[in-house]
């Protein structure tokens, strides 16, 4: 019987970390860099072929992708800004995955986190800025965390499949969000764009000094590093991975399976809720329907490509951000439709996923 984490791509918990030989470890590092890069090159080749078939010059296309996403300080800021929200929403998939759950409801946690943050921000307006901001972050994380923990709880205590319930909960969260924003929580002054009351300019968290990228990027990276540390180096993290690897074994050794599952879900949801708080506090200043932009869904892709490794999420999210940034160039200069970016992402991710089959071939371990 294949265990859940094996199918999820999470490294099994019972792999002895110290038992690897130097050669194996070194081979692993080389592999984990060389294989995705090679896959990316193959994907660029396939995409170029596609462009050639429809009558565009592939070299021109590559040049524009480079120019739009990676050529200059401006392009890099564009790329980082677009990648930032995806780091947090990807954690909403990667953290529950450690406990063996496939959660695809990050979008719901994001919008509810944003709503809670906006309401809290408005309620605390007038307090010290730091108090308001911390209050907003906590409110967003708790709202998002509880929403995903609900999916985890339904799974743990009612046996409801968490993949479906988290998807259903997303649709429900968006309906609740819209109903509240256009109903009881609506700022009467928000005429043609129904929004909640503004949190106030003084409480906005703004951009990283010297960069045109908001603080969400830093929050995301910090959250990723902490998550990695938690999962890799702490006892609860190890316990969660045991649950993810084999629930029966976890019960046998007396682990509190329910609490661990709920905790992993809560932390994942908290990450997405924080992404919602950042959208409110760094971008919009209120909660409104513009927040529902699909970041939660894009995060699923990032998490799976990163194989649910919290540290790998950062470069993958930035790569996706770069592709998105360069999409504008392709539209504006080659008159290609916006869907070109989707095709490129689709090819790139299918290729990277197919390349998973190559891992372990050069480690001398065989399979």
């Amino acid at each position: 019987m294949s265990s859940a984490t094996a199918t999820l791509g999470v490294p099994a918990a019972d792999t002895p970390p110290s038992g690897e030989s130097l050669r194996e470890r070194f081979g692993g590092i080389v592999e984990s860099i060389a294989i995705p890069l090679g896959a990316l090159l193959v994907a660029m080749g396939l995409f170029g072929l596609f462009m050639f078939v429809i009558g565009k010059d592939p070299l021109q296309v590559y040049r524009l992708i480079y120019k739009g996403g990676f050529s200059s300080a401006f392009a890099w800021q564009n790329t980082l800004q677009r990648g930032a929200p995806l780091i947090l929403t990807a954690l909403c998939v990667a953290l529950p995955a450690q406990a063996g759950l496939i959660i695809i409801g990050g979008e719901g946690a994001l919008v509810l986190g944003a709503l809670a943050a906006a309401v809290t921000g408005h309620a605390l307006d007038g307090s010290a800025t730091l108090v308001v901001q911390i209050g907003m972050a906590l409110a967003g994380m708790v709202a998002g965390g509880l929403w995903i923990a609900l999916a985890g709880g339904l799974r743990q205590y009612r046996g409801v499949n968490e993949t479906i319930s988290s998807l259903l909960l997303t649709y429900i969260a968006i309906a609740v969000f819209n109903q509240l924003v256009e109903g009881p929580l609506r700022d009467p002054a928000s005429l043609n764009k129904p929004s909640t009351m503004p949190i106030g300019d003084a409480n906005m968290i703004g951009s990283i000094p010297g960069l045109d990228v908001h603080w969400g990027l830093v929050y995301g990276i910090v959250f990723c590093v902490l998550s990695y540390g938690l999962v890799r180096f702490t006892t609860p993290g190890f316990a969660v991975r045991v649950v993810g690897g084999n629930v029966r074994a976890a019960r046998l050794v007396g682990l509190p399976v329910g609490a661990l599952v709920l905790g992993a879900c809560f932390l994942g949801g908290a990450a997405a809720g924080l992404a919602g708080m950042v959208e409110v506090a760094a971008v919009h200043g209120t909660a409104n329907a513009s927040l529902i932009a699909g970041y939660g869904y894009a995060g699923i892709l990032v998490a799976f490509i990163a194989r649910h490794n919290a540290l790998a999420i950062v470069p993958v999210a930035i790569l996706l951000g770069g592709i998105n940034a360069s999409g504008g160039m392709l539209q504006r200069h080659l008159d290609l439709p916006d869907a070109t970016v989707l095709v490129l992402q689709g090819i790139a991710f299918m290729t990277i996923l197919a390349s998973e089959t190559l891992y372990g071939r050069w480690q001398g371990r065989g399979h």
Partner: protein
Amino acid sequence: MNSRKSPVTRRSVLKALALTGAATAAGPAFWPRAEAAGSLVVGVIYVGPKDDYGYSQAQAQAAAAIRKIPGLTVVEQEKVAETTDVQKVMASMIEQDEATLLFPTSFGYFDPHVLKMAEKYPEIRFAHCGGLWQAGKHPKNVGSYFGYIDECQYLNGVVAAHATKTKKLGFIAAKPIPQVLRNINAFTLGAQSVKPDITTQVIFTGDWLLPVKEAEAANSLIDQGIDVMTMHVDSPKVIVETCERRRIHVCGYHADQSALAPKGYLTGAEWNWITPYTTHVKAAMSGTSMPNILRGGLKEGYVKTSPYGPGASAAARKRADGVKAKMMKGEYVIFKGPLKDNTGRTVIPAGTSHVQTDVVLEQMDYLVAGVIGKV
């Protein structure tokens, strides 16, 4: 820019031209820094696909029209979300394409995105569709353009009143916001000016593009005996086609949809964005100050009506043309007292008239008597 690379670039462009045979769009827009120096680069940003038979298409038609102006280059980007994405797209057009006049066309781009970018790039002109620019509060390099399309919806209502047998009209709308409510009210008042006991049943779908839900809403309304429909959603195609299939009359919105309903199409309310686009381009080219508020209706050429379809009777055409002639002269007032909303509250007292330019109308938060629905 690296000069060593430009021959390659130009050769590649030629290759692309030879390959596609249709690269007219790609040619002049390419590397504006090298090839379009000294001319005006205009960036247009759409929230949806630019061929949606609706909101974005109406804007894209104007963009296509100004493309023909000599010395002008247009760069376009579609399906841009109302998040930091649109800020980055505006910045890219400015920094990477040297655009100096931008048309961010979705309402949701205005606050905070356009305002933020306008502060950051004070030399660049931002012409936004629909926002309410306020002197002193908003940057001077931001302009807002919008059309009084409720005039056309009023005319839709006049024609619809002649076509309905059940005296029940239907209106499928996305969200209860002032722009939408104003259209619903104008449509109803136009119909009631012909037959005072006409009602309009409203369905709000909750979002701007939901084809299946819009079709479901149309079917529900038709099952309730509604026999003339109009709408305010981003892409009316599905609703117009559903009405044609169920053999009822329909009035179009945003763009001309008569081809989709050859039998049932009565007339339609269309944007004519070429007028404000041309105004902004001329101002930018001559360097005159930013026109901050551009508003206009039929008279100013900001909106237009679709040609009448076969369902519009001679009497309907005559009556509507009469009202339209008065609107063209600026003599017709749609919203005047006494006017009650559908809860019985007086919203405009007797003796008060709101001419189209009155900003009170841009804050409308009620549905007039005769509309079945709740804000």
